[in-house]
């Protein structure tokens, strides 16, 4: 385990605090401001979706929350402590492409972060089995990624993100490469997993429908420099159903996001 114990948590596990974060990409021709003065408070257990046109820095912001990239200015804390480098005990990450290791079976992929920490085989296997069961892949552990469909691969990816039981799950357009039907099913599956585990989820997407369907809160961002232009509370009841997609409340929220994006695109 990571030495989390000697850091006194200022916030409960799963809280995310982003304070005046900026990111400038330096290049030979000119410096590009990818993010400017972004501040954000995410309470534990919330499902928050980041939307915005390409180049608004939503993925960059997510990578910073994961400790995979350093911000130029400002601070980010996860569960009350800064995140200078990746810490799978606090944050699990799911990427757009399933990014599974093709030479490992599904269960070995899920065990990968545990193996990095030298956790004994039997304990690893048990945790991986639990995680695979949670994402609905019980019995598929022995398959290699090429023997799984796109949706199944993303399930394995989610299992891998959850296997260390981190309070926060970050998802970078996880369903973008999937076909429409699979995408809808995976959305429902994700909501089920989220409800069962109570994780804080930050989810980046291009799809407005997906954003409103999944989220408690939607953060809308504008491109260059990336800034937060709106922060919507989605008050639709849960569980979300397919019928809500055609309802007025849903349409109003979607339109509001679309107006922001059309303005900046």
């Amino acid at each position, binding site marked *: 385990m990571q030495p989390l114990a000697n850091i006194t948590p200022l916030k409960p596990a799963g809280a995310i605090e982003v304070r005046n974060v900026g990111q400038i990409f330096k290049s030979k021709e000119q410096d590009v401001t990818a993010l400017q003065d972004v501040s954000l408070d995410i309470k534990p257990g919330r499902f928050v979706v980041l939307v915005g046109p390409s180049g608004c820095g939503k993925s960059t912001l997510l990578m910073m929350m994961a400790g995979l990239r350093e911000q130029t200015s400002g601070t980010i804390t996860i569960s009350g402590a800064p995140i200078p*480098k990746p810490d799978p005990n606090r944050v699990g990450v799911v990427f757009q492409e399933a*990014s599974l290791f093709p*030479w490992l079976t599904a269960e070995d992929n899920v065990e*990968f972060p545990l193996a990095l920490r030298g956790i004994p085989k039997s304990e690893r296997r048990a945790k991986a089995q639990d995680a695979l069961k949670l994402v609905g892949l019980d019995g598929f552990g022995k398959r*290699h990624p090429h023997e799984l*469909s796109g949706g199944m691969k993303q399930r394995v990816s989610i299992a891998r993100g959850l296997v260390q039981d981190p309070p926060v799950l970050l998802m970078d357009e996880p369903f973008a490469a999937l076909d429409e039907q699979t995408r809808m099913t995976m959305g429902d599956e994700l909501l089920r997993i989220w409800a069962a585990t109570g994780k804080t989820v930050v989810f980046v997407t291009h799809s407005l429908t997906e954003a409103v369907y999944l989220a408690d809160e939607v953060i809308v961002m504008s491109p260059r420099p990336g800034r937060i232009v709106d922060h919507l509370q989605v008050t639709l009841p849960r569980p979300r159903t397919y019928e809500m997609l055609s309802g007025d409340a849903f349409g109003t929220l979607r339109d509001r996001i679309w107006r922001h994006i059309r303005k900046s695109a």
Partner: protein
Amino acid sequence: MSAATLRRLIVVGLIALWEILPRAGVIPTLFLPSLSSTLIAGWNDAGEYGHALAVTLYEVAISMAFACGGGILLGAVVGSLPRPRILIMPMVSSLYAVPLVILYPVFTVWLGIGSESKIAFASIYGFLPTMLATAAGIQTIDPQLLLAARSMGATLSQRLIRVIIPAAIPTVLSGLRVGGALVIVGVVVSEMLISSAGIGYLISRYRTILDSPHVFAGVLLVLAMAIAFNAAIKWIERKAAIWQTGSRAGQRAADEITAGAIQPAT
């Protein structure tokens, strides 16, 4: 009839023709001695061929170690570091186009006509494709995999051992297949040109005295060596890179799902 059966029949047919055509007098035995006379010639001088084979195998083994070891090592450096890549890659690529065999006479001047010159020549000959393939294999590793590993807290050495090496294995193996074949070519060709031992030397010597059955016995041995090498690489590929040969299995999984045989995954 399956393609594999047909393939075997063609091989059997060719072998049969090899025996029949020279015997029937369709082809002069000087050009193509019958299979049986070739085998008999080889059998009668088994001691000589055995000694030559030992010399050739020794040279091939040492050259293979140099070519593969050096190729993988330098390929890994060039593939992972941009600066050496810019320096070395253009040189190596142009060198690859040069018929290196022109250097062999120079090697015999430097190293003599013994095994050393063959090993030097064949090592360089096989080194280039191995190195190029290794460099390509490392360069083309999906950066998403490395990012994912980093997000799970993998250190640099863990990324090397658990991600970069396994991900590069298939490309490196395909480089070894080409590089290893070139090592065999390099050894045999250099033995045929200037030498005093080895199968290439035997083939060349019997050719000058127009002893076709003995020439073909040598050719058969080289053939056997190449086939054995190819089989060995295939075996390693199967062991090390099962995950590459997978599209059919993926299709099967998709079929099972659409057929509803497997619940509930999407």
